[in-house]
C-alpha cells in the first residue's frame, strides 16, 4: 500500500468495497491535491460513485484507508461534514419542496452560507425557484444539487456526474461556475464519463475501470505519447454495416481501425497524406459524410480504449 500523502485533500489507499460477492472497488489508491479540480473518469459501474460515497462518509471501507482533509470520514464525521460539500448523483430533496426553499434549508445548516439568491441566479434557477422539486427538469434538479453542495462554502466539493441530463447551455454555465469555484480556492472532485468535461475542467485525471486505477495524470500527460499517430473520423450519420473492416481493408497493413461508437472511428497508424487520402476516398466510395477528421492528437477516449480495449462512453 502506498505511503500516506501529507496534506492531500483526499487520500485513498488500497480501498476495497464489496456488494455481497461483487467487488465494486478493488484495491484503489489515489490522491487529490488541494486546490485542484480532479476528475475520476470511468464507465458506468467502474466504482466511481462507491469511491466518492466512501470519501463522503456514507460507506465504511471493507479494506484500505480513506482520509479526507486529513480526517477519517467515519470516525471524524462530525468534524468533516461541515467542511465538505456533496452533490449526489440524483435526488436529495423532498418531492413537494420548492427549489429555493430547499436551498435555503441547506444554507441554514451552515454558519456562513453563500447568498442563496446569488447562487440561484448564477445557476439559472430563478425561473423555477417556486417550482416543487418533483416538477423540476433533470437538469434543473442537477443545478439545484450543485447549489446545495456549494452553499455552505466548503473547502472541498464532491460532485457526482455534475452535468448529467443538462442541455449544452447549462453544461457550459456549470463548467464556468466550477472553474470559478476552483479559482477561489475550493478543491473539486468530480466523477464523469464525459471526455470533454474532464479535458476542459480537470487539473488531474484518474481513470478507473472495474474498481481499479488504470492511469493517472494531467490531461496533457495522459494524451501524450502512445502509438505513432491517431486519426479520428466522426461522421454525420451512423456508419454502414461492416465499416471498420472495410476501412481496414482500404488502408492495408500497418494501421488499426477501431469503432468507438456508431458515428466515430479511430485509426492508429502512420499519419501521412497517403493514409488521410485513403480515408477520405473510402468516405467518398461509401457515401459517408465526415463531420470531422482529426489527425495526431490522442484524446482521453483513445487512451481509455487503449488501456481497456473498450470505449468509455456508454
Amino acid at each position, binding site marked *: 500500500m502506498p505511503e500516506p500523502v501529507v496534506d492531500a485533500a483526499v487520500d485513498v489507499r488500497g480501498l476495497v468495497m464489496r456488494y455481497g460477492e461483487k467487488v465494486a472497488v478493488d484495491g484503489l489508491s489515489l490522491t487529490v491535491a488541494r486546490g485542484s479540480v480532479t476528475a475520476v473518469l470511468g464507465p458506468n459501474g467502474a466504482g466511481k460513485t462507491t469511491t466518492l460515497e466512501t470519501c463522503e462518509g456514507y460507506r465504511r471501507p471493507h479494506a484500505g484507508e480513506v482520509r479526507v482533509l486529513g480526517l477519517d470520514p467515519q470516525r471524524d464525521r462530525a468534524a468533516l461534514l461541515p467542511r465538505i460539500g456533496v452533490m449526489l448523483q440524483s435526488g436529495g430533496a*423532498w418531492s413537494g419542496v420548492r427549489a429555493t426553499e430547499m436551498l435555503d434549508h441547506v444554507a441554514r445548516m451552515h*454558519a456562513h452560507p453563500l447568498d442563496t439568491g446569488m447562487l440561484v441566479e448564477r445557476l439559472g434557477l430563478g425561473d423555477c425557484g417556486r417550482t416543487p422539486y418533483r416538477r423540476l427538469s433533470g437538469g434543473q434538479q442537477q443545478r439545484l444539487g450543485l447549489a446545495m453542495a456549494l452553499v455552505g462554502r466548503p473547502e472541498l466539493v464532491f460532485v457526482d456526474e455534475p452535468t448529467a441530463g443538462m442541455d449544452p447551455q447549462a453544461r457550459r454555465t456549470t463548467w464556468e461556475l466550477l472553474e470559478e469555484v476552483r479559482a477561489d480556492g475550493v478543491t473539486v472532485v468530480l466523477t464523469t464519463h464525459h471526455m470533454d468535461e474532464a479535458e476542459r475542467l480537470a487539473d488531474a485525471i484518474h481513470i478507473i475501470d472495474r474498481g481499479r486505477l488504470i492511469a493517472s495524470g494531467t490531461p496533457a500527460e495522459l494524451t501524450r505519447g502512445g502509438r505513432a499517430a491517431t486519426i479520428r473520423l466522426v461522421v454525420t450519420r451512423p456508419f454502414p454495416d461492416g465499416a471498420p473492416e472495410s476501412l481496414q481493408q482500404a488502408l492495408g497493413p500497418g494501421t488499426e481501425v477501431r469503432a468507438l461508437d456508431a458515428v466515430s472511428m479511430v485509426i492508429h497508424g502512420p499519419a501521412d497524406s497517403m493514409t488521410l487520402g485513403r480515408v477520405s476516398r473510402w468516405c467518398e466510395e461509401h457515401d459517408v459524410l465526415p463531420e470531422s477528421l482529426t489527425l495526431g492528437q490522442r484524446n482521453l477516449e483513445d487512451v481509455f480504449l487503449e488501456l481497456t480495449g473498450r470505449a468509455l462512453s456508454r
Partner: protein
Amino acid sequence: MTSSTSTGTFSPRPGGAPLGRQVAAQARMEARLMLRNGEQLLLALVIPVIVLVGGVVAAGRLRLDLGADRAVDVLAPGVLALAVMSTAFTSIAIATGFERRYGVIKRLGSSPLPRHGLLLGKVLALLNVVALQLAVLVVVALLLGWRPSTEDPVASVAATVLAVAAGTWAFASLGLFVAGVLRAEATLALANLVYLLLMAGGGVVLPPSTYGAAGRLVEWLPSGALGDAMRAASLEAAVDGRALLVLLGWGVVGTVLTARTFSWE
C-alpha cells in the same frame, strides 16, 4: 477574520450553524411540508372531524349505549387520540419512507445536521403538528357540546399531556420502524391500512369496553390504550396508569425495533 483567505465569492468559509438553529430549521421545514400536503390534511383534520360529527349524530339517532356518559364526551377524547395516531404513526411513516426513497435523508446526512439533530427536528415537527390538530379539534368538539370534566382541570390537562406524549412516542417509534424496513409504497399502503383498521376496531374512538369480549384484547393495543388514557383524562380527570404503561411498552418495543433495523438510506 478573513485576513488569511482570499475574498472570492466561493472562498471557503466552512462551519456548521449552532445545533439549535439546525434543529429548529429542520423542525420548521418538516412541519411546513406536512401541513402543505393535501392527503395529510385529510388524515390529520378532515377525517377526525367527520368521525366526531358523524359519531355524535349517529349516537343520538341509534341511542348508542356509552354508559352514563354523553356521546360527545366519550367521542371527543377518542377523536383527539385518533388525530394523534394519524400524525404520529401514519404521517410519520409515509413521510419518512419517501424521505428515504428520494434521498432526502442521505442528502441531509452530508450536511452538518447530525442524525440525532434530524430525529429531534422530526419529533419537534410532529409535536407541533399534533398540537395544531388538537387545538382545532378541541374547538370543534366544544362547539358540538363537549364538556370535559371540570372537577380538577389541572389534573385533566396534565393527564392529557401525558397521554399525548406517551401515545406520540409509541406510534412514532412504530411508524419509523415500518418506514425503515419497507419500501416507500409498501409503507404508504400499510400505514394507511393500519390506520383504518385501528380507527374502526382499535378501541381508539370508542372505548374497548364497548367491544364485548374482544375489548380485553383491544385495550392492549396502542390505539385502545391511547383512547383509554385520553378518555380517563377528560371524563374523570384521572391518569389511566394501565393504559400509560401499555403505551410505554409499545414505545419501548417500537424504539428497540427501529434502532435495530432503521437504515437512513
